[in-house]
């Protein structure tokens, strides 16, 4: 290298002094260089991000988790410092507004590492947890340390910052001594934030946030769909029609030699009534002028040659329908085992089912609100098949017998 011209002596002296001070001045600094390790995989998992002014943001559980760095020094103190301004270790920490560790009642559960550590109530405050144990815990390299602040029980957790959608921070510092942790001063800068190494071992910052809670509302209105019909398929009330039921042979004529059974009449029902829906029946027996066909006032099987009118019902589709004991036809499948004979040339089909048509005026079919034949709990459609029975005796007066039956469903919500 060739210099174009020689430097002057005063300039050389200035440069020499500059190099001297640059070398010496750092030796007089009181602070030691921040050379602690950085804890890894650090996180704080919150059970709720609601702001602390709401119930959902109070008594929250925080799970603190981190891995120690490569330094496997004994740990006797851990500080978790929650700040509203910055996660930078060494900067003055401002407590998040409204944040409260509720240190007196705070329950801490150690899930991994840090055996025997307990909270120091006297050294902790609303936003700084001092977690110590005089007996050292010696972690392995990158060993996970995990503990939970708060439990599922009431009033032993943390109150989040009081403002929604607000970022706040946690600083985690480990110490070799309990004194180091106890001396940590959150709001200061300098010797006690975080302090020298040792006793400081590792440190690291974490960002957290409260968030506004999304309120989702929906309305479910009271629902009851009920239909009666003789024509139509499917367990629903769609495209259903027909209300005529004819007992008897192909001409609708009853015969004293045997019963005629009709199974065409059905009802379908669905509801969301929490107190169930009740299906009731109103009407009188088959009547022709002053004459009528005697109904089965109590459950009875078919008897050819005796006047009988009655019905039983069973759930032919869906689930949940409960037939009234007087109208279930029996304890088993008696009602569903019946066969259609009305409209044919042959009598029979009644099987061993019981048929009933209780016309009493107190709670029977002629009472004000009719007689209960089935109950439907909240749920999808059920279809009930109504099995009508007609029998006559030799002395049943001639005539055309008719009746109109009304079926009513009532839900209790």
């Amino acid at each position, binding site marked *: 290298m060739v210099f174009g011209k020689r430097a002057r002596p005063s300039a050389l002296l200035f440069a020499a002094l500059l190099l001297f001070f640059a070398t010496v001045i750092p030796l007089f600094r009181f602070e030691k260089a921040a050379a602690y390790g950085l804890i890894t995989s650090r996180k704080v998992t919150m059970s709720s991000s609601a702001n602390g002014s709401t119930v959902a943001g109070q008594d929250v559980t925080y799970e603190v988790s981190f891995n120690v760095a490569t330094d496997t020094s004994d740990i006797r103190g851990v500080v978790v410092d929650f700040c509203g301004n910055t996660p930078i270790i060494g900067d003055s920490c401002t407590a998040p507004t409204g944040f409260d560790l509720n240190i007196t009642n705070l329950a801490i559960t150690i899930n991994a590492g840090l055996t025997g550590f307990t909270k120091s109530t006297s050294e902790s405050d609303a936003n700084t947890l001092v977690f110590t144990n005089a007996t050292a815990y010696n972690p392995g390299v990158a060993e996970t340390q995990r503990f939970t602040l708060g439990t599922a029980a009431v009033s032993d957790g943390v109150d989040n910052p009081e403002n929604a959608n607000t970022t706040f921070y946690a600083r985690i510092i480990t110490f070799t001594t309990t004194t180091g942790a106890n001396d940590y001063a959150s709001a200061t800068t300098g010797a006690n934030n975080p302090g020298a190494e040792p006793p400081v071992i590792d440190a690291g910052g974490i960002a957290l946030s409260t968030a506004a809670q999304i309120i989702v*509302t929906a*309305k479910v*209105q*009271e*629902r*009851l*769909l*009920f*239909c*009666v*019909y*003789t024509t139509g398929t499917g367990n629903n009330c769609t495209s259903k029609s027909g*209300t*005529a*039921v*004819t*007992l*008897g042979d192909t*001409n*609708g*004529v*009853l015969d004293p030699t045997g019963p*005629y059974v009709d199974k065409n*009449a059905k009802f379908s029902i669905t*509801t969301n009534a929490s*107190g169930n829906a009740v299906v009731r029946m*109103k009407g009188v027996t*088959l009547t*022709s002028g002053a*004459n009528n*066909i005697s109904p089965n006032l109590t459950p009875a099987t078919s008897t050819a040659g005796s006047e009988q009118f009655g019905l039983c019902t069973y759930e032919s589709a869906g689930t949940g329908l409960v037939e009234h004991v007087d109208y279930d036809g029996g304890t088993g499948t008696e009602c569903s085992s019946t066969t259609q004979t009305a409209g044919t040339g042959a009598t029979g089909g009644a099987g061993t089912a019981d048929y009933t048509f209780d016309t009493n005026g107190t709670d029977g079919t002629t009472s*004000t*609100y009719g007689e209960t034949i089935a109950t439907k709990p909240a749920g999808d459609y059920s279809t009930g098949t*109504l099995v*009508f029975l*007609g029998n*006559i*005796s*030799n*002395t*049943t*007066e*001639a*005539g*055309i*017998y*008719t*009746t*109109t*039956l*009304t*079926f*009513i*469903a*009532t*839900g*209790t*919500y």
Partner: protein
Amino acid sequence: MHIRSVLPANRTSYLAWVVGFVLTLLMAVPPHTYAVPNMANRFDQIQDSAISVVTTHRFGFTYTNTIDPVGSVAFEFCSNSPLPAVPCSPPSGLSVSAASLADQSGEAGFTINGSSSTANKLVIRRSPQVPNAASAESIYEFANVTNPDTIGSYYVRLQTFSSVDGTGAALEAGGVVFSINERFNISAEVPPYLRFCASVTIVDFDCSSATSFFVDFGEFAINKPKFTSSEMVAATNAPYGYNITAWGTTLTSGNNIIPELVTQAPSSPGISQFGINLRDNSDPNIGANPSGPGTAMPNPAYNVPNTYRFNTGEAVVSNPGTNDNRKFTVSYIANISTSQAPGIYATTISFICLANF
């Protein structure tokens, strides 16, 4: 109107105007209905679910707010929704204009507030009182409600108020549903019938076994009666019953006759006589009493054992109503005197049964 024309001129007045406008707007917005608690165990029991009929609705529910006084309860019928926040569509054909409060229990003391009620809304009122927590269930039964004219599900919005006219913020609310449906028309025909047959013998009540129609007294003797019998079965569902009449002549042989007994008389051997009855006789030992599930009995003239009679065209059985199978045994007796001309005596007796429908 352009809005600028109503804005005040100076800044202070403008601010007051804005604040006033916002407050007015806030007051005009209805409260969130989901904040109103639901009354519990609510139902609407309808007396008749047919379209367009006049019926009774029986509402029941339990008050859950036992703090605020209740001065009125509203029952609003809607076809679209039970939710108070949704504008109500009155059900077509429904009318509560003529409704009356037929019954009430639990929290009672209400009368219909006519001025607050409409064609699809009933408001009942009372002097405001705090519901009694002990009143488990309250019932309000309204008569003379005309059902909707279309099949389907309909809703009733129930709301309670502190006011006596159904206005203001609801204390409690809840919906119920009722369904309007078709009715089942059930029919069957019972045809008129008359079962009647006559024969020498009939097995049980089976008219197909009635196949013999000739009876023979045998050879007459002066000192003892001759007798024989035949059977008849009758049944009908004729509401006014049936009559069986006997038609024919007494025993004849050419121009000779054995006189019939025109009045009831016992068998008298040695005297020419012919007669019948329908009872079990011992003199002579012939006949049987009527039998079977039916109840019909012979007419008195033919219903006395050991007495006989025969008048053509006379009813031997009359029954006023329907009658099940009944078997009658007809006993025939004949006696002759010493002067009775010889010959072969015969007759044909026809029994005719007429049912009265």
